[in-house]
């Protein structure tokens, strides 16, 4: 299947090589192998595959979704996929031969530029795997820069991000300390206290944090900077249409997951790791980055640059082992940002504020209790009258994905549910959901 040689061509080639049959060639190329048995079902033709995939897909039930929690349903203009599905983007490799890859290279340069503009940061790489791994790279860089072994993370950091950090630094001499949460926000007093520890390399500021709460970024930054630690912002890129930018509160590194910028939720992947930093940390940048160069005629051209940091050159002395990143997701993101433009980015973020607050108002009206009072972006925590997991199970049967139950956050969170409403929700849908929730 998909082998392009005809049987006759194979024979011609074998003859040219002086072999009678393919087995002889394989024996010379890889002595001792060639006889594996497989317990696999019969191969499907494309028609059969289409039917099979259709059946599998139909086992996923269409749901009215109010879950966010790190993966957000947003509107993607049709032009985004129309562009990124073009064969010239889809089936190109990492742009090593720059002259024959100016399309991908310029698109990445525009991605880097747009991300820097959105984040107000100096430098962006060409992309990372996802928000969690981008955060891990930033933490690793901060620890190296500061040569200190303690990193403060907020209690209200995405649990998957916490777990990923733990895995990344499992065998490294790094201590993670959680700064506690007070009424849904980072407890600044606790933060101050922890910062008195002189081993602290950095604080990770999640904004909005996992509870949807918008943090007091200026105050936090001041406290962190005063203590001489680095500030790593971990943000929702779409929220930056209305929320303060990492650059404006002096973040040293700012990361996030760019799924929200024109990429599908897709059960969690592929998403898009965004990695940005201040200019002075450019040599800590993991992965690929595109820069401007000149061609022989002196014209502007785009190339992968600063490759000396990378594995194929430095091998075991490289900054990171990353090669493949999420280029196509980054392409989706830059097309999305270019379509929306400055106005659109503000508007879509504002719509998220509006819809989530409408949901909050209607839920309150229906008697649901809000857990926290702080400002939020597009999701927030409610207190259910019974374990949130039970409610989610019940609503799933009605075709509603109700939210993310927070019981793993321990005491006081047994009945807490994180709910989200983005610009994709109509007023009718929000009303319907609020009414059902009010019925519990």
């Amino acid at each position, binding site marked *: 299947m998909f082998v392009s040689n005809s049987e006759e061509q194979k024979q011609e080639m074998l003859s040219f090589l002086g072999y009678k049959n393919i087995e002889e060639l394989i024996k010379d190329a890889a002595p001792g192998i060639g006889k594996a048995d497989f317990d696999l079902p019969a191969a499907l033709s494309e028609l059969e595959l289409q039917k099979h995939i259709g059946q599998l897909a139909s*086992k996923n039930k269409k749901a009215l979704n109010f879950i966010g929690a790190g*993966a957000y349903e947003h509107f993607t203009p049709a*032009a985004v996929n129309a562009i990124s599905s073009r064969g010239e983007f889809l089936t190109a490799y990492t742009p090593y031969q720059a002259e*024959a890859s100016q399309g991908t290279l310029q698109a990445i340069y525009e991605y880097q530029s747009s991300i820097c503009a959105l984040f107000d940061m100096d430098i962006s790489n060409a992309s990372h795997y996802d928000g969690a791994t981008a955060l891990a790279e930033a933490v690793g860089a901060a620890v190296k820069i500061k040569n200190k072994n303690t990193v403060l993370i907020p209690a209200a950091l995405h649990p998957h991000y916490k777990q990923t950090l733990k895995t990344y630094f499992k065998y490294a001499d790094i201590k993670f300390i959680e700064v506690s949460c007070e009424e849904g926000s980072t407890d600044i007093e606790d933060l101050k206290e922890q910062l008195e520890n002189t081993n602290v390399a950095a604080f990770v500021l999640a904004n909005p944090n996992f509870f949807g709460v918008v943090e007091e970024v200026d105050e936090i930054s001041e406290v962190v900077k005063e203590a001489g630690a680095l500030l790593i912002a971990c943000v929702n890129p779409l929220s930056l249409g209305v929320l303060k930018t990492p650059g404006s509160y002096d973040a040293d590194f700012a990361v996030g997951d760019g799924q929200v910028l024109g990429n599908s939720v897709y059960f969690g992947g592929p998403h898009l790791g965004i990695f940005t930093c201040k200019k002075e940390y450019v040599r800590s940048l993991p992965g690929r980055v595109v820069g401007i160069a000149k061609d022989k005629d002196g014209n502007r051209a785009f190339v992968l640059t600063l490759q000396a940091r990378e594995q194929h050159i430095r091998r075991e002395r490289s900054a990171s082992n990353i090669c493949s990143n999420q280029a196509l*997701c980054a392409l989706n993101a830059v097309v999305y940002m270019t379509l929306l433009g400055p106005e659109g980015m503000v508007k879509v973020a504002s719509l998220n504020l509006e819809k989530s607050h409408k949901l909050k108002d209607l839920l309150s009206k229906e008697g649901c209790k809000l857990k926290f009072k702080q400002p939020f972006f597009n999701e927030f925590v409610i207190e259910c009258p019974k374990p949130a997991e039970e409610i989610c199970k019940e609503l799933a049967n009605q075709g509603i994905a109700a939210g993310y139950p927070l019981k793993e956050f321990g005491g006081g969170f047994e009945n807490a549910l994180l709910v989200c409403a983005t610009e994709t929700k109509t007023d009718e849908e929000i009303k319907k959901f609020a009414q059902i929730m009010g019925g519990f």
Partner: protein
Amino acid sequence: PQSKLSIEKSTEGKKGVALPELCKEASKFLPENLMRKEKPVLPEMSEFEVVRHFTNLSRKNYSLDTHFYPLGSCTMKYNPRAYEAAAAEPSFSSAHPFADANLAQGTLELMYNLERGLSEICGFHSFTLQPAAGAHGEWTGVLIAKAYHAKNNDLNRTEVIVPDTAHGTNPATANMAGLKVVNIKSGADGCVDLEALKEVLGPKTALVMLTVPNTAGLFEKDIKEIADMVHDAGSLLYMDGANFNALIGLAKPGEIGADILHLNLHKTFSTPHGGGGPGSGAVGVAEHLAEFLPGPIVVKNEKTGFFTLACPGPLSIGRVKAFYGNIAVLVKTYCYIKQHDGDTLKEIAQNAILNANYIKEKLKDFYPSFFDSVCMHECVLTINKEKFKNVKTLDVAKRLLDYGFYAPTIYFPLIVPEAMMIEPTETESKNTIDRFADAMISIYEEAVKTPELVTNAPQTQPVKRIDEVSAAREPNLRW
């Protein structure tokens, strides 16, 4: 003319998309001190202008769909269009990772069966689908090895042995995982020198990382002996399966002695590379390592047939990224294995090997092969320095662009001077390879007779030869 950036085409007041009306401004919901002050500097263009901009950008790329792409070690093979259609299914793309399992049985079943299918194809006990790329998978594999030795309280095993024919990611990964890299030189035949291995293998060895076939394009002929040596020394054997298309259907890594293997699904399993990703670096392990795999993992209730995501056991290395893997890539991989059985899997490797040897033989009088042996999925050639004088491998690569071919991987592997690593893959046919060989031979003749044609290449691309060093001097990485 010079290509314009989107921002250079921007005109104030234009919009690329109509959004629904807003009833209230953001300031109704947020205190001013938490709000953004200035709009981001992004282009202002109409939808039409955006579509035209990016469509024309795409046309400045060579790609698999348009050109032969003999990039060694990258396995640029055809990406079937049916798989793109499958991955675009809204039921797959809109499923939320935290939705109740009831709502996502299709995705979960697919993940479960893919994990079983890859295990069968590779001869392993189980697979994790979580790693986002090959290097991410390697690192996952190395962590598993560490966890294994830790469980055995074998804490002195801090070294990873890596032959010089390994992928560059191998040493980088080992280093990233906090292990010491011990490099060993290959033998003259391009394979692991058993003596050299014996010398460094010992009680400190945590892992031996073999790239099979290696970056010389060769099968490690002593693989079974190596596996025995490694296991006898108490170490684990890691196999870099980035180029598994040379072995698939011919051998199961789990059966020839590998304990851990990562696959680049975006190479062997035909998912597109997307100009740099997303890929997927699934990792398979033998039974004794299954308990260390990252979680969660999909489990099936054999009675009800219901699929759920289960937390891993206490020995798991933990989560390597948020959520569960690059599912859209996995859907395509799943399609690929559904379209193959044992016989057609074997055809993949057979044709990959046949094509590479055919190229090597056709070019032998013009570009000598660095190693004598019959190669696997790729061949490593070099240039005839006496005849070529000033013409370098880089020049040949650039000249190929003028002939309508992407270039091979060049100057890699590092152990071969002026290397050209050529991988045709099994999805190219003799027709294309013959055209490519003719072009290479033409370039040989140009290099000998009219070298300036080669050293001044490319002439047919959107830009002339780029001075890559100029970019690194004062990096301009954004507008």
